[in-house]
Every structure is written in C-alpha cells, then in structure tokens.
C-alpha cells in the first residue's frame, strides 16, 4: 500500500468519526420520543440555564445536577426509580416527585418532555 493511500484512509476514518460525533446518539431501545427535537426543546425551557447538558453550549453552571449519563442513574432527583415515564413526570412537575426542591415547574408540554427525556437518555 502506498503512503498516499494510507494517508487518505486515515483521513477518511478521521472524518467519519468526527461526523459520527456530530450525529445524535441513538436512544437506547425502548426509549420513546425524538431526541433531535428534544435537544432544541430543552433550550426553549432554559434547562441549560441551571443544568450542564451534554452537547448543548452554555456556561459552567451547577445550580441543578449535571444531566450527563441520565440513562445510567438509578434514581431521578435521588428519589424515584429511574424510568423514562418518571423522568417525563419529573420534567413536567418536579415538586410532585421531590417536594421543596428548587426546580420550578416550567410548563413543559407532554410531547416536549418526552422528546427532552429521549435526548437526555441517549447521551
């Protein structure tokens, strides 16, 4: 193999892996909703003003928990066993699951909450 073809191959692999990095991660099986739409929706409810959200540009902020690896958490808000349905419920009405915590109710619709949860669970 000539040096040039080798270089070209490396370049192609690099470009492909960069593209793969840009594409949204696939949601784990069983997760409903549209992660792509959820990524935009979460910025429209200012989630990223208090939480650091993987893949979303924002300030270093630690008012709320960082939202990385949500699919690996055992509990939502440290209280309710983690499932997509619970996550959707928490996003829509955090006080119902963890009364007195500082996260307000932001008026998130059912569909938006489902898509936001799909995005968070696929990070």
């Amino acid at each position, binding site marked *: 193999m000539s040096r040039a073809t080798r270089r070209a191959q490396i370049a192609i692999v690099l470009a492909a892996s960069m593209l793969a990095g840009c594409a949204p991660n696939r949601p784990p099986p069983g997760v409903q909703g549209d992660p792509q739409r959820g990524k935009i929706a979460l*910025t429209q*409810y200012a989630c990223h003003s208090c939480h650091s959200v993987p893949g979303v*540009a924002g300030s270093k*902020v630690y008012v709320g928990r960082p939202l990385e690896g949500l699919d690996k958490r055992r509990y939502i808000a440290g209280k309710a066993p983690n499932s997509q349905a619970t996550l959707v419920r928490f996003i829509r009405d955090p006080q119902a699951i963890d009364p007195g*915590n500082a996260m307000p*109710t*932001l008026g998130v619709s059912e569909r938006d909450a489902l898509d936001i949860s799909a995005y968070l669970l696929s990070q």
Partner: protein
Amino acid sequence: MLSNRARLIVKTIVSTVLGLGVIGVVGGLIVLRGGFYNISATESHYPLIYTVFEEGLQYSIQNHARDIQVPELGAPEQLLRGAAIYAANCVQCHGGPGTAPSRHGMSMQPVPGPLVDADTNWRARELYWITRHGIKMSGMPAWEYHLSDSDIWATVAFVSAMPAMTVQDFKRMTAAGADTTSVPKAVVESARASAKEDES
C-alpha cells in the same frame, strides 16, 4: 536600490497578502449577503464561540467595575425593596429559587442565567455594574435611567443574598405587601457579607 531577487521577494509577499485579503473580503461578503448564518434563537451557539464571548464578558465586567465603592448592604428594608424590584423587573428572565422565569425569559438565546449562584460568579460591585449598564447583545437591559442608584444597590443586595434563601424565603420576600418579618436573618447576613467581601 534593491537587488532583483529582493524585489521579487517583496513583490511576492505584497501580492500574496493583497490576494488573500481580496479572497477574504469576497468570501466574507458571500457569507454575509447569502444569509447562510442561522440567526434563530433555536439554533445553539457554537460552544467555542460561546466560551470565548463569555470569557470576554467576564474580563470586561471585572475591569469596568473595579473602582466601584460598595455601600453597606443588607438592611431588611433594603432587602425588601430589592425583592420588590426583582419581582417587578428581573424574575421574568432570571427566575428565582423554585420560581420559573416567564416564557420569553426561558426561550432567549443566550439564556439569562439563574442568579441563585450569582455570588459564585460575581462580586457585589460587578452585579451593580451589570445591573446599571446592562450587557450588549445578551438581552440584559441597562437600568441606569430607569432605577435610582439606591434601588440598584437594593437589587444587588437582594441578588447577592439569594444563595441563602430557601424556596419559601424567596416567595415570601417577593410577595406583594411583604414586611421585614419575612426577611430571614441568614439572608441579612449573606447580603452584609457580600458587601464586606468587596471592601478588601
């Protein structure tokens, strides 16, 4: 007189610089006039651009606020006044502990930060400067011509004491007709401490 060789080198440098300049201007105009940049507030900033702008903002504010003298902060009446101003003008975009911003505040880009953690990012004099002068291209308005100086300081006192507030404290203090009994001791101390911190 330059030798032929030197003349050739100078010529090459000048024409390269000019050529690149022309290409740059034409390229810039194409991008600008083509409208390719997506200006919408649903399209995220590029993370690098966001970070560079944010750093610039921090250095600018540190520099411009450096000579501001901070008065004594934390009298319960002052905190109540600050709470009333906050409820009337600030909570719509910044929200508060357990209180959501309004819809227009939530969907702004850049998103107006929460102020619960303002004390970790800013000194009292910097909060005063930001409130008084606003921040260009961020949506943060200047209040210099709309609030008196003592009202701006009252707002700063309230904001810098916010980390000491529970969800209930915030609700009680910002409620209409709140009196000084709704101001917890911890909140008074927190405001006092942030003014003191700036003296040093």
